């Protein structure tokens, strides 16, 4: 009996695995796999503060700093 697929399994080193933007605890619970549809829908809500608002805030901070 020959071992199964030993030659085809690519070795991935620890450093090759990019977990920078991954919450490993969340990953372990499998939310991204089990609820891909819901999570994709939630991510469609993206809202930015208006440029004017950010500018107003920065102006306020600068004025307070003086």
């Amino acid at each position, binding site marked *: 009996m020959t071992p199964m697929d030993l030659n085809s399994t690519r070795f991935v080193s620890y450093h090759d695995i990019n977990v920078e933007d991954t919450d490993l605890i969340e990953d372990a619970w499998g939310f991204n796999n089990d609820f*891909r549809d819901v999570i994709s829908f939630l991510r469609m809500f993206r809202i930015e503060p208006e440029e004017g608002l950010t500018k107003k805030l920065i102006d306020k901070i600068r004025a307070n700093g003086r």
Partner: protein
Amino acid sequence: MKKIISDYELISRFIKGEESCFEQLIHRHKSKVFAYITLYIRDHALAEDIFQDTFLKVIQSVKAGKYSDNGKFLSWVMRIAHNLIIDHFRRVKQMNTISNDNYDSDLFNSIKLSDGNIENELIKRQIHNDVRTMISCLPNDQREVVILRHYADLSFREIAELTGVSINTALGRMRYALINLRKMMEDKKISLTLN
């Protein structure tokens, strides 16, 4: 490759007098903080006020030496935003006059129709409205964990600390929230074609 300056370094430089460093922090985190606030506060003008107050309070606290870095600047900012939102609701409850529901469409009416075509903007508004409505239908504890994870971008560890529950409880709440949201999507006949 350009090196990304950490939040901690930016704060340290701000304390030493480099004002522009705090501006970098605002640009870095503004979307998350704003999304977090607007999902709780439907009145657009009020959400903008709380957004500004949050960062002003952050500055005050940093200058007063109340911030000790443990790599969780954003989580700390969210806590401040969270407290300001709670203060607001307390005030409203005391006054007992204004309902948050009256402002349902304010935020969406303020979205400019200048970018892209009008049809796309209307679709975007509809999606925003659906997401908001569905999130607002969740029980408070589930809603909180969804907003903190998917809009404030906090890790489960940070969410657990912020909400004062164990990581497992936060994860459990998220699972129930996602199940409920999927049910709402099915009821509303929302389906997504995923690549």
